[in-house]
């Protein structure tokens, strides 16, 4: 299937490339990575797990560092450095795969300089889309006229489908890659609009290339799969919203 040229107004709210590590990073390594990246990503937030253990007569608390969320000066490029994952994130406006890919490579190189090459157990290419449909366009119409993924209600039961949420995984036909999709209605982000979530996570957790050149080729293939899932799941009516 031919790739559709980039849309002028893509509905992508968040694009995430996530590398999951076989062995977790120590607190020291996380902090060294944070220091390495803080010039490029100066706004730093700490992510912690807090556990409260309630006993009849006492409460024990336990805190542990999960990692850091770091935001660049442009406020749209982020990294998430966590014990088992390294994520490069791009918020809207999405300006294209090439830009994101370049950031991923940059971040991976910085990661390698600090802690060396690590075995990767999973690669994820996740694109979170929010499709905002003007109420004037959707009133009296079916959501399937915009997004082909949703819930099915038996004939004759419901007048129309209201709020819904789906979460499904499948193996993509052409490439054999794993895909998780999540979709549903959202609180409208824009006045006089309905907002629909369409979250695509293409991932592989087997046969991950160890050679770097093959690794990057695989990442590009995953992007093509993500595009295929997206394009097959939306209609021309939806595409017109992104022009």
């Amino acid at each position, binding site marked *: 299937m031919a790739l559709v040229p980039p849309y002028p107004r893509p*509905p992508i709210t968040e694009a995430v490339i996530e590398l999951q590590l076989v062995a977790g990073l120590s607190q020291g390594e996380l902090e060294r990575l944070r220091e390495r990246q803080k010039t490029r990503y100066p*706004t730093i937030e700490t992510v912690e797990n807090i556990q409260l*253990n309630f006993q009849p007569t006492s409460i024990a608390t336990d805190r542990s560092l999960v990692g850091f*969320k770091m935001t660049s000066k442009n406020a*749209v490029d982020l990294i998430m450095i966590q014990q088992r994952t390294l994520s490069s994130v791009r918020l809207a*406006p999405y300006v294209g795969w090439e830009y994101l890919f370049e950031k991923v490579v940059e971040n991976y190189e910085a990661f390698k300089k600090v802690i060396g090459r690590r075995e990767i157990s999973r690669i994820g290419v996740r694109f979170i889309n929010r499709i*905002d449909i003007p109420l004037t366009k959707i009133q009296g119409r079916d959501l399937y006229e915009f997004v082909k993924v949703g819930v099915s209600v038996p004939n004759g039961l419901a007048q129309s489908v209201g709020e819904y949420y789906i979460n499904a995984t499948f193996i993509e036909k052409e490439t054999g890659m794993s895909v998780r999709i999540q979709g549903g209605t959202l609180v409208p982000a824009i*006045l006089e609009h309905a907002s629909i979530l369409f979250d695509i996570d293409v991932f592989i957790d087997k046969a991950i290339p160890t050679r770097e050149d093959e690794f990057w080729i695989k990442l590009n293939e995953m992007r093509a799969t993500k595009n295929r899932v997206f394009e097959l799941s939306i209609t021309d009516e939806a595409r017109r919203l992104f022009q």
Partner: protein
Amino acid sequence: MNNLVQAIFQPSVSPFSFRGDALHQFRPAQSITEKDLAVSTEMTPGYDISLGKDRTITTIQGKVQRSITYKEQQGRTFEERVFDALVLLKVAVSEYAMHLDASERRKIFEDLDDVLNVEDWHDGDRFPEIASFRAFLKWAVYASFREWTSLGVSDDGNVLLAWQTDRGLLTANFASTGDVRWTAKITSLTGVEYAAGRSTPQYFAKQARFYLEGTE
């Protein structure tokens, strides 16, 4: 029970502010009742809660584990805190970026850089409320009426906009709730007219069109 409240709501990680999917969903309480813990028990099933006759919790047994994201405030300089507040507002713009042209987004960023800087702000000043800023962005996308003359921030953190045109002056104060308080001063054939109101964002869009363009 007050110790328990503190353990939940003020764990020993202060000072910090919660963001995202964090413990901020818990709300403080003077004494814990079944109602007070409704949110947390829903999120983390597995509690054993015993209630007394007055519906006050007598014992709780179980574990809660939540992931929180927070920004260290201790040791941050004033310049760094201003910068962080600025980045937070710019991140909020990304939620609406697909409905804004590059030039419109740039204008908002430039206005923010102009408004929120270390020269004009002092330690202790209240930074812009993110909910008010979102209300303004939603309105701006909806109204397609973006040629404001200036953007500012009120003492209580609300976003302020002003338009100065040949017809007159229109000001707007965007509350975190989404309501807009506005004033208008226009010159008509009969003299200078004044008007003020508190409206929904949709209605304010109509008002703005009327006062600035003379159309509805």
